[in-house]
Each structure stands twice: as C-alpha cells, then as structure tokens.
C-alpha cells in the first residue's frame, strides 16, 4: 500500500440504529489521483467520507467489516487527531466549520493543534491564502464573508494541516454560482499541484468532467459503476436510474447521436473538454453530413400569455434597508408585477436581494419605502400570520419549521392556526399528503424522514393553507438531482392544476429554464432583467454582469441558429425536438 492513497476492501458499514449505509465497497486510490463519488442523497457518500477520516467510528458509531487503509493506517484504530495528520475533510456547510474570529486564526487552528512551529504555520497560511485567493482577508471574521469565500477559508484551514488525502464532501452544494465557481477553481488548482489524493462527493456532474481520474457511482450503499469519466458517463441509463444528473452537454450529444443513428463514443479527453462549444460543433457536423435535419417549424418561445389575468403580487418602488453599521440597502426601487397563474423564476447571486424581495411579499419584512400589494391590496398593515393564507413560502431548510410527532400533526398545526374546523382540516391533510406523494408517511415522525421528504412535507404544510401564491426559496440547495425536480414538479402542478401563482428562487439555470416561463434576474438590489425566460437567457452580456450563465442547451441552440434552430430554445428537450435524424 503506497503512503498517500487509500484502499477500501470489501467494506460494509452499519450505523448503530441498524441502517446499513455501505455494502461490500472495494475502492482503491493511487497517490495523487482524483476520485469523484456520485450518488443520490442517502446513497452512502458521506459515510464513505466519514470512514476515511475516522469520523466513523469516533463520532458516529456502528459496525464495520472489511479493510480500510488510509496512508497505510486504519482510521478505526487511531484517535482522530492522528488521522487528521494525513486525512483532511471539507464538509458541505461552511458555517459549521468556521469557529475562529479571523481568517488567519482559522487557517492556523489545525496546525497549531498539531504543534507545528509558529513560523511554519504562518508560512503555510500564506501559501493557502495565495492558492485560494484569500489575500487581503486575513483579519476579516470568516462569518462576514460570502459563501464561496467561507468555503475557501474552510478548505484553506484543511490544507494548512498538509493532509495527504483530501476528502471533499459535497463542497459546493450550498453555494451560489459564483461561490461554486470559486471553490471548483480552487479544487482545480489543487488537482494541478498533484500533491494530494483527492476524493470528492458531489451532485454537480458538470463540475467534475475535467477533474476526475476515476468516477464511482453509489446507489443505496453499493458501487454500481466505476471507471474513467468516459466509461461511467457512457452508461446514461444506469446513471439516470441512480438519480444522477447527466451533464446537459453530454445528454444533448448522446440523444442527438441516437437520433442520428450512431452511438456516442467519447475518449476521456473529449469528456474533459465537453461543453456547449464542442457539442455545438458535433451537432453542426451531423447536420452538415445530413445525418440530422432541423425541423422547419421554429419552436415558439414560451410566453406567459396571461396578460388578461389580474396581478397577484406587485412591488412599487420598493426599497429595503437592513439596519446595521452602516445600514445595508438590499433592495433599491424595485418595481415588479406578477400576474395570477404565472410561474416566475428569480435568479441572482447571494446578496442580490432575491430573498429580501420575497420576504417583503410575505410580510416578514416591511419595505423601508415603497408599496407591496397582494391581489391588489396594500399589505403594509396586514399581520404576517394573516398573510400566510394568501402567500405561502417554503424556506430552504424544512427543519426550521418541523416540530411535531407526525406528518399529520405538522400539517394540522397550520390549519389550526387559521381556524379550520377539525373535520375539514383532516380532509385537507389527506389531500395535500397525497398531492406531494407522502400519504404513506402520515404517521411518520418528520425527523425520521429523508431531507427530500421533509422538504415535501414542508411544501404540503404550506399548500394546506390554500395560499393564492406559493414562493419557493432556493428549493435546489443541498438537494440531489431527483429531489430538485420533484419539488419543481410540485410547483408546476400547483400552478397548472390549481391555477395559482408560483415564484421560484434558484441557482439552477437548467431547472429554471425547464419550468419558468418568465425570469427575473436580480443584481445588487435591483432588477437587471425581466422577461420571457428564453429572451432573458439570450441577454448573455447582461447575465455575465451578474455572474450567471445561460443553460448549455441555450448556448448550443444559439450556435446552431445558422441551421435554423430557433434562438429561443433553452432546454435540451426543446433543442432535441428541433432536430430529426435522417438515418439511411
């Protein structure tokens, strides 16, 4: 066994509560190798990270069989401070990993515990700040930094301990696009340095195509696929069945190739350089060769067509300032009107004002100036409890609201607050649980449910109040691919089946392209763009100003516009619907 890799040989692990998290896992990493582990929520990715870093069994107990070796040692046998000398871990949530008052003390924390001498610690901290672009932030409190900066500080704090194995457990899942880009860029640099073995778990398959030497796919604790990125991503059906997102560029190429009657065969090099440009070129070649034709009818842009509907929500010249030293202006003279029955996406970086705006719509925040109207009524004096009947909002984290002993009680709580008689309330409980596909969980203790199911329960509890407008605040955060689309489907059904209005805040451009007919882009407390989704995504320069990128399908469509593909296409489905194979 080489000194800086790791090896798991036929490892099975069962938690103390009897839940088997991993089953017969065999996996080997060579020194300097970059391994990516994919899997839906609950697939066993975090347990794998915990086994390598000694969190299991030292913090979470359980029963293990098989062999685990990290740098030639078994983390099971060593105290955690020994394992920490050769294995560093970066967790999902930057907030819980930062507990020192300045960036420099955060970076120094690990090596000072290991009694590294002061000069060496400062030298390492300097190097980490250089690598992670943290220079100038030395004295700042990590809690005051942006999400991406926080996660880079947390990564730096691990790097100063000089681990030989770096374990990254979904390091970008809670970040906005800029934060995600910053962290992925840092990981690229670590990979280029080649000094460490790196294992990273993620749902963001687009990020890892040019990083991974080896990809492992976990499904319910078992390895169902492993190999080079080309080997793994050439099996899209298996990946889809395991709830893994196929990168959109690859998905478009595979399906276009199928339409053209050919099987997609890609080398690892082609996978690494896969993007809208390369896929556009491949599809253009197929069109030029006559293997694909562009259908003559252009796909119409999805316009809302609801101009006859009354306004459900209106913001007139709304400004909001958070009190502080100095006060922070989160919204500046916002004007926005949403008609009944619209499904509107709101995108923008963290701090752009998205959440502040929707909190004004539900009455949690009162504008410093300007007016908010719901169904034409000024809500300035309407209490927030009363607002809950009109505008429902599902927060990012369902655990802020769940507190009762069963799903049924959870939904009854809200209904009781608005004075619904018990017979009627029980009827509604059944309806909404059926609606979110949780009727079997009616008596289940919410905290025993998966994160995805807890979010669905939170939606059900909100929908039960029968609001006219439903707002989803970042439903994609910390969710796997399947979970994201389940919530988006619920949003669409709420609009389609009940004719209600939906606002959805998200960082997932591919998802919002599929679901929203109208898109609002916020930047620095202002509305930068507002219009039909396809039109907004065509404003590439304006989007780039707010560090957003249009979906891959939109960029491919634009590159094929000279062949007649409409530039209004923004989803892979719409793009593929424009193309037809001509198999001889």
């Amino acid at each position: 066994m080489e000194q800086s890799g790791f090896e798991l040989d036929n490892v099975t692990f069962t938690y103390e509560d009897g839940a088997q998290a991993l089953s017969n896992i065999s996996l080997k990493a060579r020194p300097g190798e970059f391994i990516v582990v994919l899997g839906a929520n609950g697939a066993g990715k975090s347990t794998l990270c915990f086994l390598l870093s000694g969190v299991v069994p030292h913090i979470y107990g359980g029963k293990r069989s098989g062999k685990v070796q990290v740098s030639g040692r078994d983390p099971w046998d060593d105290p955690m401070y020994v394992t920490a000398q050769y294995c560093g871990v970066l967790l999902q949530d930057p907030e819980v990993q930062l507990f020192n008052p300045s960036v420099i003390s955060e970076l120094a924390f690990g090596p000072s515990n290991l009694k590294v001498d002061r000069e060496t610690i400062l030298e390492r901290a300097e190097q980490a700040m250089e690598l992670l672009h943290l220079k100038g932030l030395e004295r700042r409190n990590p809690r005051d930094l942006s999400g991406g900066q926080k996660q880079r500080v947390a990564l730096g704090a691990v790097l100063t301990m000089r681990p030989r194995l770096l374990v990254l457990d979904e390091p970008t899942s809670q970040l906005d696009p800029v934060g995600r880009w910053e962290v992925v860029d840092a990981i690229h640099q670590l990979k280029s340095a080649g000094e460490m073995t790196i294992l990273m778990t993620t749902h963001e398959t687009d990020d890892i195509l040019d990083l991974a030497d080896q990809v492992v796919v976990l499904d319910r604790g078992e390895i169902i696929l492993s190999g080079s990125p080309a080997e793994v991503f050439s099996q899209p059906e298996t990946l889809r069945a395991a709830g893994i997102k196929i990168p959109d560029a690859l998905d478009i190429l595979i399906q276009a190739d199928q339409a053209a009657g050919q099987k997609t065969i890609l080398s690892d090099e082609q996978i690494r350089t896969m993007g809208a440009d390369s896929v556009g070129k491949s599809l253009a070649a197929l069109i030029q060769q006559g293997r694909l034709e562009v259908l003559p009818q252009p796909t119409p842009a999805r316009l809302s067509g609801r101009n006859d509907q009354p306004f459900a929500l209106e913001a007139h010249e709304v400004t909001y300032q958070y009190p502080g030293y100095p006060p922070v202006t989160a919204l500046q003279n916002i004007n926005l009107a949403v008609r009944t029955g619209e499904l509107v996406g709101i995108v923008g970086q963290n701090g752009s004002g998205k959440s502040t705006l929707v909190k004004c719509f539900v009455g949690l925040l009162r504008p410093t100036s300007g007016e908010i109207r719901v169904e034409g009524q000024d809500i300035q004096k309407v209490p927030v409890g009363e607002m809950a009947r009109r505008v429902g909002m599902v927060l990012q984290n369902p655990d802020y609201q769940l507190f009762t002993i069963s799903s049924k009680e959870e939904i009854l709580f809200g209904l009781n607050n608005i004075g619904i008689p018990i017979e009627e309330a029980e009827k509604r409980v059944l309806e909404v649980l059926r609606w979110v596909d949780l009727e079997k969980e009616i008596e289940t203790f919410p905290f025993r449910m998966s994160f995805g199911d807890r979010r669905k329960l939170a939606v059900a509890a909100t929908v039960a109040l029968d609001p006219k407008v439903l707002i989803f605040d970042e439903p994609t955060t910390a969710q796997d691919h399947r979970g994201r689309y389940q919530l988006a489907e619920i949003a669409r059904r709420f609009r389609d089946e009940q004719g209600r209005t939906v606002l959805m805040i998200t960082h997932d451009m591919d998802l919002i392209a599929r679901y929203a007919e109208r898109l609002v882009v916020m930047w620095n407390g202002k509305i930068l763009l507002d219009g039909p989704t396809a039109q907004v995504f065509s404003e590439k320069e304006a989007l780039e100003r707010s560090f957003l990128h249009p979906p891959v399908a939109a960029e491919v469509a634009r590159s094929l516009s000279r062949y007649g593909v409409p530039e209004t296409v923004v989803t892979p489905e719409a793009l593929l619907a424009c193309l037809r194979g001509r198999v001889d």
Partner: protein
Amino acid sequence: MQIPFRYVDRNSIIHRLHPLVKTFYVVLTLLVILAPITNERFLVVPITWLVMSIILWILAKIEFSRFSTLIKLLLGTFAFLILVQGCTYRMGTTVIIELFELQYGETNIGALKLEGVLYGAMLCIRILTAASSLPLLVMTTSSADLVNAFRKLRVPKVATFMIVSALSFTTLIFEMWDNIMNAQKLRAFDIDRMNLFTRLRRAYVPIVTPLVLLLFRKANDFQIALETRAFGTPGDPTEVEQRPFTRTDVVMILIFLVVFAATQVVRYYISASLAATG
C-alpha cells in the same frame, strides 16, 4: 435582533488592550459588586465603578444600539426585581401604592413599599455594574485573543474552548431563533401578536423544539469540524497570535487599581461612619 456578546471589530484603545488587562478589570468588577451593601450610602462604590465602565465603553467606540437586546433583558429583570422587592421587603414601612391586601408573616405583599423599591434599585445597580464589564471583555476581544489569555491563566484548553464555542453558539442560536420564528409565522403562527399568557401556554413549543433539534445536529457537525482539525491532540497548541504587553496596558492596570483602591477606601470610611452613628 442585535446579538449580545458578539465581538465587534473596531480599532479602539479598548480593543487594543491586552486581554489579560480586560480580564483583570472583570475580576475587580466582581470584587466590587460582591461586597455586601447594607446601606444606600455604599452605592457610591458600584456607581463609581459603573461610571468608569461607561467611560471604557465610550472609548471602545461600540454603538449603543448594539445593546438593545441586552437592555431589554436587563429592563425586564430590573422591573421584576423592583416589583418583587417592593412588595416583599420585610423592613418596608412606607407604602407607595396598595394593590390588594395579602399578609405574609408581618408583611403585606399586596403593597409596594418605598424601602423595598430602593433595595430593589440597589440590586439593579449591582447587576448593571456586573453586566457592564463582561460584555466589554467579550465584545472587544477576539476569541483567538481570549483563548490565548485564558491559556496564560492556565485555564484548561477544553474549558477555554467551551467558553469560546458557547460565545460562537450564541450567535448561531440567535440566527436560528429568528429563522424558526419566521418559519412559524409563515404558517400563520404569529407569536408577535400573542399576549404573554398565550405565549407561555402554547408559543414556545413550536419555536424551542426545532431549535433544540437543530442545535443537536449543528453540535454534531461542529464536533466533526473540530476533531478533524486535530482539536483532541493532547497538550497545548502552538501560540500563533502573540500579543506582548504594552505601556498602555500597564497604565490601564494602574488606573483600575487606583480606582479600585479609592472605592475600597471610601467603603472603609462609610463603614466606619455607620459604625460610629450606631
């Protein structure tokens, strides 16, 4: 909501003071307020110390509005103390207002008495003096400096980190409390509009239960983050951020000692004078 006890980053003379000097000031404050006050004339001692604390706060350049939460808590406590002492003080004879008549021993606890109110006010001044010192230490000293100071005082590493983590968790608890309140308001559970009795009867379960469950979860993550960064290594960690004593530190220690000594001299003379007058 303003979070009490959170470190406020400023470049003030108080921020630059060595943490041990500020710790010394906290210890002296405790000595001042723990000394018994048997007569209102002794109040000059804590009031003198309070005046010095106020000067230190002004020098620390921390905005008064940052204390809004703390002040609300203190005002509630003061109102409670004055009311309870006013009604139950055994030596109270001068009735200010009689709410109802209810004899308990020789005292009518249904009447508010001047002597009781004054005794309650004396307690309040002592509490205010105490409350003015500890926040000055934690709001002007970064936790890294606190850790170093405690280490120099030979406080065990685990105990030191428990104190610092508790301060860090205070911020987290306030943030979570706000988020949970908002989440429940969105379910038509408007705690702000409930009266005190309704709040006590039914309001806190939907707030406290998620808070406790979330804290357990956060504490687990926190432990993972700590342990994977070798916190459990036996022995003292390397001291990275060194902070030598300066001339200002020495001057401030002298000022604290002089004021403390002066209050003790005054105290002695008041005792002597009271003894002389019988």
